[in-house]
């Protein structure tokens, strides 16, 4: 006998959830959190380099975004707004706590395995995911903050050029050129590690 299950209700829009949150519904907060926690965490982690700091930045970001909804003019999506607040919170936290990631990376470099150019042909060959992540974190840390943030918002948060421009308050042209130079620097860093 076929078992029929009721179709899942369509996901509520961010605007609807925000309206419910404004009305005091905790469940709306939970849904918003579930919806954006991973993206927000990735953005914060890429900027800060460690889980504890990233979680603090996500906490600061969610709290600030939801306590300053009057500043959210609905000209962009809530996701864009939230990520702007989270990334700013991460940058603030990074400045307050110092460049802790440099100490971590110095320790990581001591035990880093050689990186082989064959990885470029197939990222899944040779290099395990943890080593890839470690290498990329090191390479990311060498980028100027503005380039790093632009690259990470596009690649981790999967924001469009327009959305990245909105989050960072820059032009789309600036987004594109920063992405180009960020990839160029990352490529050069990875290739240099391969030669060592």
């Amino acid at each position, binding site marked *: 006998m076929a078992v029929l299950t009721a179709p899942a209700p369509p996901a509520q829009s961010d605007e609807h959830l925000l309206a419910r949150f404004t009305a005091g519904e*905790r469940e709306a907060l939970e849904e918003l*959190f579930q919806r954006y926690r991973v993206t927000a965490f*990735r953005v914060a982690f890429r900027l800060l380099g460690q*889980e504890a700091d990233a979680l603090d930045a996500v906490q600061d970001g969610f709290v600030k975004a939801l306590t300053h909804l009057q500043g959210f003019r609905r000209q962009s999506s809530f996701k864009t707004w939230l990520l702007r607040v989270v990334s700013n919170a991460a940058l603030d936290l990074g400045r307050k706590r110092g460049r802790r990631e440099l100490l971590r990376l110095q320790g990581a470099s001591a035990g880093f395995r050689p990186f082989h150019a064959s*990885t470029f042909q197939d990222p899944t060959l040779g290099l395990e995911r943890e080593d890839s992540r470690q290498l*990329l974190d090191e390479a990311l840390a060498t980028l100027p903050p503005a380039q790093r943030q632009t690259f990470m918002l596009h690649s981790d948060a999967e924001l469009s050029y327009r959305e990245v421009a909105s989050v960072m308050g820059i032009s789309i*042209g600036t987004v594109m050129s920063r*992405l*180009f130079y960020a990839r*160029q620097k990352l490529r050069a860093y990875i290739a240099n590690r391969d030669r060592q």
Partner: protein
Amino acid sequence: MKRHRACNTPTPSELAAYLDGENNGEESARVEEWLAQNPELAAELEAHEEVSRLYQSAPPPEPSAEAWDGLLARIETELTTRSTPLGVFGHAVDRDDSPRPRRSWLAWTAAVAAGILIALAYVGNPRPRDLAGRDSLPVASDDDVNILSVHGQDIAMLVVGAVPLQEPLALATAHDVTVENVQPDSDGMMPQIGTNSADASSPMIVAPIGGNSEKAP
């Protein structure tokens, strides 16, 4: 990457957009034609694409379920104690729609205290815009800055390199100028016109460094 001066050379922005599929058909075709003629740079661009793929294949490790639960709890706690819908109303609407016991007196006390603190901070500190007459703090020299790109509308506003002018620039001397009529400016200030005919080469109209030296009160 070499810098080509040919008019068809794609800009870094166009190359990035090509990689991300953000170009229109005409732009993509032009980039592809150029890449076909510059294979070494096409290889470089392909390496950029590999970097992006590698990046996408290695996202940061996700926190544990306990970490997520703890984070949500901290967010809820912080929102409850602040002036938010969760805090001000003193209760949340549960699934069964029954309000929790009110703790509004705590929330209102906290809100009033926060308001007093904010008012004191505002009175004690000047507004960010009241900067007239304050000394500027140099935060970077031209050597510290690497300009990656400038939006078209901003080009005319951007000064690149060291300030070429180290002293006021004489735009005209007494010999060059005949004064017919002098009116006060919008601040009521009358410009000082040099009329020393003994020195016809002395500057009469001078552009000071940094704009007007006399600012409106």
